[in-house]
């Protein structure tokens, strides 16, 4: 069984990856950390993403051990600079 999540990239991460959105297939039971590993394992340019990035799952900040579900929206959040 697999699950599909939608990953979002913003600002400097979007420039780095060259896309703002990417669907990723993961094994059932995968966590945010597994998603990061899967992407970084693809090599350039994804391997330049942080090993421990700030992420938000369904628009709430989440840690790397957060389990993912089908259709989750996972945003990679570069260091923020509002104001």
């Amino acid at each position, binding site marked *: 069984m697999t699950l599909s999540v939608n990953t979002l990239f913003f600002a400097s991460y979007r420039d780095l990856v060259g896309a703002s959105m990417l669907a990723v297939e993961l094994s059932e039971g995968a966590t945010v950390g597994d998603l990061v590993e899967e992407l970084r394992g693809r090599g350039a340019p994804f391997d330049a993403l942080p090993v*421990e990035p700030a992420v*938000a799952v369904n*628009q709430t900040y989440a840690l790397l051990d957060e389990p993912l579900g089908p259709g989750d929206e996972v945003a990679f959040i570069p*260091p923020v*600079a509002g*104001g």
Partner: protein
Amino acid sequence: MPARVVHCSVGPQVIDPVDVLARVGSEEDGAALLFVGVVRNHADGRPVSGMRYDAYEEMARKELAAIAQEAAERLGTDRVAVEHRTGELSIGEVSVAIAVSSPHRAESFDATRYVIEEIKKRLPVWKKEHYEDGSDGWVEGTVPPGTGRGVLATPDAEVDG
């Protein structure tokens, strides 16, 4: 007196600080405070010609509302209104406006400070500076608390980490 967030927005619409201020205040409030963040013409000694603000807008709206609610509840204010702008801004344009009212001044000062500091720590917004020489660059930001370290996986970062 129930604390409440009377207004909260994140988007490309031009901010009118007077309008934001006009949203707070009541007959119970003896103080109203307005903070305005403005695009300035220099950064670390380099002349800046403009700024682009990008946001994860849906999340930023929720996060900004949460910040304003925390300020209202924890710091004993009456009303809080806040707007953050996105898109291309010129020098002197308003990027953020925060208005707070409370029966006494201390709560308004504390809450206004809280909202701007939390925006800088946690609001999913990024800015790209346009420099006078035609180049541009993302402003170095802050890793939101309680998340990963967000350090790009350059060889140097791995040695440090």
